[in-house]
């Protein structure tokens, strides 16, 4: 029996795989790491005292489903290096360590290899940001995952080597900058950092918190960020990007233009938290070549041929930045679409 | 019909600008308490209301207290509420009051007992203010009880009024109640105390439009205060009180709060005096009864006319 190959075991790939398997399809899931989960594998819950609707609650049951589903075979530590077009469907050439293998009888391929975070890129951390007081927002994930404040009532523990009394969140790193090869808005970072800021506010009521935005974005299907909301939580709002960073012994000093007063102003902080833009995954060139896809000007992928004809589908952040909920919804849609096409093909 | 002997009625009918005041009977049985209070008021006011277990706090009966005060030479208005007595008790009391020479009655529904110290009490509310007015009217003018039975001896001689809050919302609903009271025969009204003059002016305008001021005599309620706190408390906690912010600001700005309180009362009196249809004032200083003569003098309402 033919199988559907899903490449990438992150939330996009797993959502699609689970849907297909539930509909009775055989699925081959190919994951380059040794476990499922991709980027969000070890993310922590971002509830403050209430749910902030980060959607992480949704993902573990999907990963578990993939593990338990009999119709899904998972290949770990495996990458796809080529794709051979057959009369009916494809054969994928996979590589696992030294071992190269053929995976025949593939009827369709869903490519869901996700994105690269700006922090993972060499260029992401210029000299100026090399300082223990400057961290990436995602550096909070381990602290969040390990926190014991909801049930045991302790504070979130900083894993920084010092206890900051203030923090500034700097939005639009690795986004909206030609210099950083991302003229686009990554859309998810405002909501992401906002949630972390809320957790900090809840754990440290006395902490000074500020956020610098170029343009504040919505934060998903359910959350509408607003200045009123930030004000209520006593998170200061700056509608600009700082122009200069000065590193003093006792604090970091951000110079920014106070446009209301038309003057330069400064803000001191113990901790600077950088948002991180979503960048295209590292294998996009290869995927474009072997699956006959096109890179858009930002490096994300799109199909040239209709998936119904080509049998190649794209799911998740491989096509553009997106948050967990959008990724899951879109991946489900892709799976349903594939099933529908398969069904109508069978009828013909 | 016997000749009226209510002094209040005579003054109002003669077109005098009337001054009333208010007195709470003691929580106890000491008649001296009342007599002392009477000394302060004598000559400064035309009639004095005596409350009927106001805010549901038990005090000496208003009729007994009024009788004592009357003997001191004051004209009294007994307040009667429907909270504590049913139609049998109320009518019987009214007959008794008239027999004692107490001729003025202020008919009220009564505060709910939850405001007092006897929240557990069963309330009556068999008659509300409109029904009490109606009972007075039927007994006085027709010599009949509510049940239609004729009185067997002389009917009482009562001069009866009611209260109204010009600031209560919705306006039309409360106007409806006022009209019902007038329809039932109410002769005079005493209003809730006034701070918001714009709103009071508007109310009077509506009253005149409907011709109500020609059917009953209107006395404006005046409540002199001596602190910002008191004003704020009233604004916040007294249902239906309308204390505008500018009043509070004025008091806040004053150095001598007592003098300012008196001046504010005087200003309000001077304002309402000029309004067509306002036939008097009703002074009700809370826990500051000694100020009544001062306000009366300052407002050029002293001395009071003789009947």
């Amino acid at each position, binding site marked *: 029996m033919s199988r559907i190959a899903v490449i990438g075991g992150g939330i996009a790939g797993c959502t699609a795989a689970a849907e297909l398997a539930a509909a009775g399809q055989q699925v081959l899931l190919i994951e380059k790491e040794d476990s499922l989960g991709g980027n969000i594998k070890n993310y922590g819950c971002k509830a403050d005292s209430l749910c902030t609707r980060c959607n992480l609650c949704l993902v573990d049951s999907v990963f578990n489903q993939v593990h338990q589903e009999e119709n899904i075979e998972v290949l770990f530590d495996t990458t796809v290096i080529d794709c051979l077009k057959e009369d009916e469907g494809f054969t994928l050439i996979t590589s696992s360590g030294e071992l190269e293998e053929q995976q025949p009888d593939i009827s369709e391929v869903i490519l869901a290899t996700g994105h690269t975070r700006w922090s993972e890129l060499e260029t992401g951390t210029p000299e100026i940001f090399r300082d223990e007081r400057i961290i990436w927002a995602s550096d909070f994930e381990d602290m969040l995952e390990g926190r014991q404040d909801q049930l045991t009532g302790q504070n979130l523990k900083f894993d920084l080597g010092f206890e900051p009394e203030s923090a500034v969140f700097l939005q639009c790193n690795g986004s909206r900058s030609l210099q950083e090869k991302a003229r686009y808005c990554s859309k998810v970072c405002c909501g992401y950092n906002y949630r972390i800021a809320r957790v900090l506010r809840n754990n440290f009521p006395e902490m000074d918190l500020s956020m610098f935005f170029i343009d504040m974005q919505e934060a998903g299907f359910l959350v509408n960020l607003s200045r009123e909301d930030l004000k209520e939580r006593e998170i200061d709002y700056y509608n600009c990007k700082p122009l200069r960073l000065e590193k003093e012994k006792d604090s970091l000093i951000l110079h920014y233009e106070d446009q209301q007063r038309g003057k330069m102003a400064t803000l001191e902080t113990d901790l600077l938290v950088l948002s991180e833009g979503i960048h295209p995954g590292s294998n996009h060139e290869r995927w474009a070549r072997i699956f006959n896809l096109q890179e858009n000007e930002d490096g994300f992928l799109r199909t040239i041929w209709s998936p119904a004809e080509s049998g190649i589908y794209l799911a998740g952040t491989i096509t553009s930045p997106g948050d967990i909920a959008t990724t899951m919804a879109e991946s489900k849609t892709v799976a349903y679409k594939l099933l529908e096409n398969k069904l109508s093909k069978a009828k013909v | 019909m016997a000749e009226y002997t209510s002094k209040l009625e005579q003054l109002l009918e003669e077109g005098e600008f009337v001054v009333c005041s208010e007195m709470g009977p003691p929580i106890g049985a000491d008649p001296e308490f009342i007599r002392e209070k009477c000394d302060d008021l004598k000559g400064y006011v035309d009639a004095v209301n005596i409350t009927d277990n106001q805010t549901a706090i038990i005090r000496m009966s208003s009729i007994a207290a009024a009788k004592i005060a009357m003997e001191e030479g004051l004209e009294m208005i007994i307040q009667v509420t429907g*909270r504590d007595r049913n*139609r049998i008790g109320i009518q019987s009391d009214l007959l008794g009051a008239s027999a004692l020479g107490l001729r003025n009655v202020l008919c009220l*529904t*009564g*505060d*709910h007992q*939850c*405001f007092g110290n006897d929240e557990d009490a069963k*309330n009556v*509310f*068999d*008659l*509300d*203010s*409109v*029904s009490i007015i*109606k009972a007075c009217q039927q007994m006085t003018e027709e010599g009949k009880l*509510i049940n239609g039975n004729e009185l067997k001896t002389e009917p009482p001689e009562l001069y009866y009024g009611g*209260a*109204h*809050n010009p600031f*209560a*919302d*919705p306006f*039309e*609903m*409360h106007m*409806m*109640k006022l*009209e*019902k009271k007038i*329809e*039932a025969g109410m002769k005079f009204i005493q209003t*809730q105390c006034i701070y918001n003059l714009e709103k009071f002016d508007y109310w009077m305008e509506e009253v005149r439009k409907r011709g109500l001021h020609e059917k009953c005599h209107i006395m404006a309620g005046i409540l002199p205060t001596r602190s910002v706190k008191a004003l704020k408390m009233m604004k916040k906690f007294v*249902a*239906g009180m309308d204390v505008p912010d500018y009043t509070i600001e004025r008091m806040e700005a004053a150095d001598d709060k007592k003098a300012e309180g008196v001046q504010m009362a005087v200003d309000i009196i001077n304002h309402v005096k000029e309004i067509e249809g306002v036939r008097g004032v009703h002074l009700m200083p809370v826990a500051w009864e000694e100020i009544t003569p001062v306000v009366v003098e300052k407002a050029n309402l002293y001395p009071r006319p003789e009947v």
Partner: protein
Amino acid sequence: MIVGKLKDVAEIKEMLPEDIESLLIIGCGTCVSVSLAGGEREANSLRDLLELYYSSQGQDVRVNATTIKRQCDDEFIETEELSIEGHDVVLSLACGVGVQHLGIKHPEKIILPGVNTTFYGRNADVGEWEEMCLGCGDCILDDFAGVCPVARCSKSLIHGPCGGSQDGKCEVDDEIDCGWELIYNRAEDTGQLDRLLEYEGPKDWSTYRDGGVRSHKNPEFFSE
């Protein structure tokens, strides 16, 4: 519908005799079930709670629970007669009617009330009830635009609001709607404002309990 409220469990504990050996809790499957006060759920959880209590006290008390469809009718009670006789004390979770009806049927049994019968009301939201009727025996809703001044005004005034009505709320409590404002608004909406101006005279209370304990017969079921 008759609305009830389960009594505070501490009060129930106090009313139970100290030397009790067996207790039967009887829920009622009609009004108090619908008002979530004394149905099977409450009867069973009260049973379990009291069992927990007595065992923690080292007291050996047999606690049972059953629910009767309607405690105010003979036929429903009869099925539980043996069970009732087999316990020292009965705790009825019916309204006051059911408790007394059990008493009439079982003249030598201690019957205790487990529910406070609160009022005749409507369901305002799940788990929330509002008083609507007093059972005064002389319905005057036609005169008041269909809103009862007797049940829904805290002073049962029939000639209009008292001075304590403010912003649609009652002087007794901000949580209580002013019944008169409801009457007024509905009269306005239904074009019946003029009727409110009529003087009604004081209400006839003889049909209420002021006329003595009430009972009545439907003549279709009785001959002279």
